[in-house]
């Protein structure tokens, strides 16, 4: 980010390549709306461009990035609610709609994936948000507290409830540890 601040456009290209898919992924699962997530993802990075001049390294870049993404999603959700459109915590039709199984996944994993998506989509939005920020964005609990503007204890409580709800839901869907297989590449470092 500092390199981009200094005028190095290639540095921004690297940022985009590194973070765009995780951010998009976060937004798709948070909003449960693929088209909206695409627009929001664009807006996130345009905001990064706009705000880059004044960016100071007070926190990790990811924390800042996901704070932008999360706030945009929340704002958009409010606007959508105002327009009587589908709210943020609507059923995850779109999340399940992306039914293109990753080619490098085993057939079993491809079968399990919709169930994992469904279990995640069934979480209350505030729990889903915390889970995604911790598991997919890789933010620490203190950073999630900063991003969501809630106390760290509350963040951890939500995470515990989220894990518990997921466990219950996955059991009901018949998904056990043996179904998960090897963790995907994108999740390996979390």
């Amino acid at each position: 980010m500092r390199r981009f601040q200094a005028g190095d456009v290639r540095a921004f290209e690297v940022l985009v390549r590194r973070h765009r898919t995780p951010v998009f992924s976060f937004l798709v699962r948070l909003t449960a709306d693929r088209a909206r997530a695409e627009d929001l993802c664009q807006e996130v990075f345009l905001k990064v461009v706009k705000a880059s001049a004044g960016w100071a390294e007070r926190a990790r870049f990811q924390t800042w990035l996901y704070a932008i993404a999360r706030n945009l999603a929340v704002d958009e959700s409010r606007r959508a609610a105002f327009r009587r459109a589908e709210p943020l915590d609507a059923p995850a039709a779109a999340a399940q709609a992306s039914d293109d199984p990753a080619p490098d996944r085993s057939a079993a994993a491809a079968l399990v994936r919709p169930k994992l998506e469904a279990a995640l989509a069934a979480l209350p939005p505030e729990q889903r948000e915390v889970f995604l920020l911790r598991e997919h964005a890789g933010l620490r609990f203190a950073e999630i507290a900063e991003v969501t503007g809630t106390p760290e204890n509350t963040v951890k409580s939500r995470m515990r409830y989220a894990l518990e709800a997921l466990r219950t839901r996955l059991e009901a869907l018949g998904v056990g540890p043996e179904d998960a297989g090897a963790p995907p590449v994108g999740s390996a470092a979390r």
Partner: protein
Amino acid sequence: MSQDAFQDRLLDLAYGELSPREAREVEAHAASCPACRAELARIRETRRIMAALPDEPAPEAGERLLLAAAREAARARRRAPLLPRWGWALSFAATLAVVGAVSYRILEMRGPAERAETALMGNGAYQAAPAPEAPPPAPAGGSPEAEHRREAPSADHRAERPAVPPRAAAPAAKAAPHELGQGERGEAAFARPPPPSGAIAAAPAAPPSEAKRPGAPATPPEPAPREDVAPAEAAPPPAPAPAPAQSKAATAPPRAAARLHATAPAVDAGADAQGAPQADALASYGFLRSAGRLRGEIRTFTNCPGEAWRKVETDPDGRVVAYVREGTIGGRRLRVEAIYGADGRLARTRVRDLADAAAPLRDARPGEAPGTPEDAAAATADAPPRCGD
């Protein structure tokens, strides 16, 4: 430690957020506490299952736009660092220039201000001065010289006025009737037959700053108090419409024309804007763009098929010169580019059909790009999205 607090510690342990010493303590406790051990195992197991959920790949489509926006921002940033280095020098120079210009104007204006009110109001009478003929050198206060002295500030004023941005030029033109005292537009003034002279002779002595101007007696009188009038001196045919600056410069006396260009490099751009042909707007846009003098702002709109994103480009004066929008218009995915002249009016609309990757930008046919703002004021970045067009 409460149960909740300890569960938080288990969570921290499972996510690797404890220091090595704390982690050892919690693990030691979990080893001796079956419930804690089971809870820790459940957390880890759920994490492992959910980790099988892959990332959703982001669509490639928007990446180019993001990089374009980044390039734009980087360009702007590269220009910006020059300011702190030269800021003080520029500020000082600008202050000097402003002080100098104001002082000069005050000196110039002092003479006319000291004249009788009738003389001040008598620009119209001045225009009515007899046909230009080299006035004989005469002592101050004589009629021909007084005439020259009266015109001199106006000639300078004429040279400076075009430097004012085109928007500022309009009020100046509106002020002309008052100056003339005739209730007419300045552009039409030179077409009037010269009224009888007389008021000029009554004019008091000119300020010393004007009297010492070299070459003044030899210069033919320039009876035009305003730049709009200048062409009439050389070519008196009636021309009610405002003429472009080039024609003014071409027809004005050489000295005035030279000053026009020398003192106000912005003249052409500004004056072009007044009556610019539409092609000029495109050329001007191309020039500003290639010179890197445009500032771009990109906005995206969610749930807005008619305008998924827009880019608004403004010139150094903050005027909107281009407005690009992409969206589904009339059932087709189009990129519409609207170019505005310096007068703020839509000069050109170009369209690219995005379904055909090889299709170039082409001029839009009437009605092809509905919802294109007709005026730059409606083409700002903050204008409401045109979702339905």
